[in-house]
C-alpha cells in the first residue's frame, strides 16, 4: 500500500517550506491521523517512512514520542479531558467521572460500542477557562457536568 495520492500531493507542497524534507514528518503524521482512520497504523508508519526516506522504526520513534499521535485505533469520538492542575482545581475530577459515565468509556479506554475514547491529557492551555475537554479537535471550556452531558449526549 502507499499513501493516498491526495496526501502525497499535499506533502510535496508541505516539505517545500523546509530546507530538509524530514521537517515535514510531524505535520504529515497529523494529516495521516486525520485522514486515515484516526490513528497511525503500522502501514501508515511504513508509508511515511518510504515517503520521507526513513526507516519505519525512525518514524515509529517520532510518532510514539508525541502524545497526540495514537498508535492504536480509537473510538469514533475522542474526548481529551485535561487533568492538570488548573483544571483539577475547578472540578476536572468530577468532569472526568461524568464524561466516563455519559460515554461508557474508562480513562484511556474506548466504550464498548466504539463510539467514544476518553483520554486524560496534560495542560491544554485553557487554564483560565477550566475545566475543559477537547472533543475531536474542538475545545469546550468552562465545563460543568451538565454542560458536558449536553455536548456528549447529543453524539450518543
Amino acid at each position, binding site marked *: 500500500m502507499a499513501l493516498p495520492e491526495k496526501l502525497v500531493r499535499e506533502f510535496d507542497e508541505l516539505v517545500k517550506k523546509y530546507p530538509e524534507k524530514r521537517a*515535514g514528518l*510531524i505535520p504529515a503524521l497529523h494529516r495521516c491521523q486525520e485522514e486515515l482512520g484516526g490513528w497511525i497504523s503500522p502501514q501508515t508508519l511504513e508509508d511515511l517512512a518510504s515517503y520521507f526516506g526513513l526507516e519505519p522504526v525512525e518514524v515509529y*520513534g517520532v510518532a510514539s*514520542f*508525541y502524545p497526540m*499521535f495514537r498508535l492504536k485505533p480509537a473510538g469514533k469520538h475522542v474526548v481529551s479531558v485535561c487533568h492538570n*492542575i488548573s483544571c483539577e482545581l475547578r472540578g476536572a475530577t468530577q468532569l472526568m467521572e461524568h464524561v466516563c459515565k455519559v460515554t461508557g468509556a474508562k*480513562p484511556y479506554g474506548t466504550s464498548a460500542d466504539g463510539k467514544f475514547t476518553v483520554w486524560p491529557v496534560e*495542560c491544554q492551555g485553557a487554564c483560565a*477557562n477550566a475545566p475543559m475537554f477537547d472533543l475531536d479537535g474542538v475545545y469546550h471550556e468552562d465545563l460543568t457536568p451538565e454542560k458536558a452531558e449536553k455536548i456528549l449526549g447529543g453524539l450518543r
Partner: protein
Amino acid sequence: MNKFETWLLDRTKVANSHTLAVYKQLGGYHALAKVLTGAKPMTPAEVINEMKLSEIRGRGGAGFPTGMKWTFMPDPVKDPRPRYLAINADESEPGTCKDRVLMEKDPHGLVEGALIACYAMRAQAAYIYVRGEYRLSYQRVQAAIDEARAAGLVGKNILGTDFSCEVHMHKGAGAYICGEETGLMESLEGKRGHPRPKPPFPAAFGLWGQPTTVNNVETIFNVPFIVLRGGAWHASIGTKGSKGNFLCGISGHVEKPGVYELPFGVTAREIVEQVAGGVWKGRKCKAWFPGGSSCAMVKGEDLDVVLDHDSLKTKGSSLGTAAMIIFDDQTSIARVMEIIARFYDHESCGQCSQCREGTQWLSQIFHRIATGHGQEDDVATIESLAKGMAPGKTICALSDAAAIPTLSAVRLFKDELLECVRQKRDPIPYPRVEYAGAH
C-alpha cells in the same frame, strides 16, 4: 491600582480583530512600513538598538533580555549562512494560556512582529511552532500569513523593497519538552523533541545547524509597538529590570480567572483581589504559583510581592510565564504535588537519568503520600531526590522544573505532607478517580 496604558490586548476586543482589514484599520503594519519604507527607513542595527533600549525581557519564562539575544546572531558578512527565527508558540507550561489569546484574536500582530524581527536579524524565514492542540491558533495565524502574502507583506520584495521573508506555521504534537528551545528545534526538524546540550547555542547552531533565534509569541508581539513608539517609551513603563506590560494568566481558585494585561509593578494581591475578583467563595489563599508550575510555590500570606523578575526572588520564586495559579485554603498540597509530579514524569524526554528516574520517583512517591500509602521517610526522600535533580545537572531545565516546586512544597508545607504520611490518609478531603497513567 492606578490607571495604566495598554496595548497588548487592545485590538483583541474589536470584532473580527483577526482579519487584515480590521488590523489595518487599527494601525496594523505601520511599524513594518516605518522600518522598510518610512521617511527614514531603519537599518537592522537600528531596530535591534530600539529593542535593547526597550529593556524588554523574553516572555516565555526565562526572562532573557531580547535585544541582547538578537545581537548573538553572527555578523552576516562574516557568516553568510541562512538564518532563521523560530517563534515558540508551544505554550504548555501548566497555567499558561496567554499566547493563545494573541494568536486567536490578533494573529497579524504576531506576523508583523515576526517580519520585523527577521529583518533585524536578517533571517530569511520565521517558523512559528504552535502546539498541536491549538488548532484555532494555527488556523488563524495561517490565515493571517495568507492574507499578508496576498497583500505583498510576506514573501518576496515586501512593500516593494529588497527585503524578502517567509513566515511558516509548524504544528507540534503535544510534547511539553518542545517548548524548550533546543527541543523545539529538534522537533521542528522532524525528530523526537530531545533538547540539545549547550553550547553550541542556537545563534551559532540552531535549526538545521544554522544561526537561529528562538523567541516567545508575546515577546515578538511587542516588537511592532516598540518600533513605532520607541524603545525609550517601553523602558519608561514598569519596574527596574522588568519593563513594559505583560500578560498575566490567572487560574485556579479565583472568582474571575482570565488573561489580563498588566504593567510590571502591580502586586500579586492587586491582581488576585482587584483584577481577578478575589479568592473564590470568600476563602483565603493558601499558596500560589507566580508563573506556572515550574516555579517555586509561594505562601498565601506573601501576596504583597510585586509580580516582576526580581521581586519574586525575595520570596524564593520567579516570574516564569506570569501564569498565576491560586490555591484556596481547602486545597491539599499533597494532591497538588501529585498532579505536578505526574506531569513532569509524563513530559520528561528521558535523555538524562536524573530527570528520567527522578521525575518517575517523585510522581510515585507523591502519589502514595496523597493516597495514604506514604512511608515514614518519604518526605525526606522527596527532598533528597529533588536536590539530586537540580540545579543545572541535566541537558535542559525540565529536571529543575520538577525539582523546584517540589522543594518549595517541602519547605513551605512539610508538616502537612508529614501529616498525610502519619495519618495514612490526606486529612484534606477531595474527590478522586483512580486510573493508571499512560505514557
